[in-house]
């Protein structure tokens, strides 16, 4: 039974890997980083930020949200998920 707790070194993706893999124009990625919607590590992009980028891309594509809106929806969805989990924990207690 595998379990890992707290911080583990993660594999980082290079900007080129990311833009190529999800077909995002490099200047758009630069812009998203400059706006603070996506955070970079010094050596590249963490998987968690790549996931976020892909989610933003889907929200943009599927729902017609702009990038700021997509970033906000993700932040709020995470907060709602956390609150729902908290509510479940307290109801069960």
């Amino acid at each position, binding site marked *: *039974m*595998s*379990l*890992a*707790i*707290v*911080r*583990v070194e993660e594999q980082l*993706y290079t900007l080129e*890997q990311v833009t*190529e*893999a*999800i*077909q995002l124009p490099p200047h758009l990625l630069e812009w998203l980083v400059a706006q603070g919607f996506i955070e970079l590590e010094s050596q590249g992009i963490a*998987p*968690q930020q*790549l*996931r976020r980028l*892909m*989610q933003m891309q*889907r*929200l943009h594509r*599927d*729902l*017609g949200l702009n990038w700021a809106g997509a970033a906000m*929806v*993700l932040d709020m*969805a*995470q907060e709602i*998920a*956390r609150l729902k*989990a*908290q509510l*479940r*924990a*307290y109801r*069960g*207690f």
Partner: protein
Amino acid sequence: MAANDFKDYYQILGVSKDASPEEIKRAYRRLARKYHPDVNPGDHEAEDRFKAINEAHEVLSDPEKRRRYDQFGQYWQQAGARAGTGYEGVYEGFGRYSSFDDFINELLGQMGSRPTGFGGFRSVDFPGQDVEASLLLTWAEAFEGCQRRLNVNGETITIRIPPGAKPGSRIRVKGKGQPSPFGGQQRGDLYLNIELPPHPFFQFEGEDLLCEIPITPDEAALGATVEIPTPTGKVQLKIPAGVDSGQILRLRGQGWRDPKGERSNLRVRLKVTAPKSLTPQERELYEKLRQQRQWDPRRSLQEVRL
């Protein structure tokens, strides 16, 4: 052909059979906003709904696919009514499909790409979504650390909670989140947010613990040594003479712990508590004290004006 095979795409989108392309687009957008998996992380039901909505939209938004789908719908109804007779009527060629899925796979396979959930990306092994969960621990479990068996996506895993967890601590369990929606091997992570129920005596104040102890007026005036509870047992606290109600004394290294065993401080807030009933002797002594008092704590109030 199974009778409950047929998927009513109009019903899935909540539109009538003669809905205009605009109505279909509007209905799709509205439902997609509501059930989009990125807006409902970890919600499998929403993800299934979203897939169905997408499939319905892919068929109904394309005039040719919609026409074929409508035809198949009529054929399916009649075939259902005359099961086993091989009836094909005016609807050419539908008899070769043994199920609705066969038909729709071919329709979407031939005339477009089958929607793969929310696919379109390939080539890199992309990780799945993170999952947020709350874990309610007792104060003792959080302080000492503990193991918990949790059911995550139908899989039982054992989690070790390191000692010193606090409300709001986040524990990351790598690779126990959602599977990748792109068929990759890498799963997202599970984040456990630690919750503690309110404690009758202790509460957190930043890194430190805060508690309140009642003391008597004479203890406040004269000082005293009192026994107070800490997370690891009772200790003696020396209260200096002349303390006020609300004053906080700090007990170094008697508060919460971190995973390495370092302890924060325990802050003890004093609450001067007056006796609610007095014996005749006590009353006499308090009266005497009042007569003898040289000190007026409200003297500075004389000067107060607006």
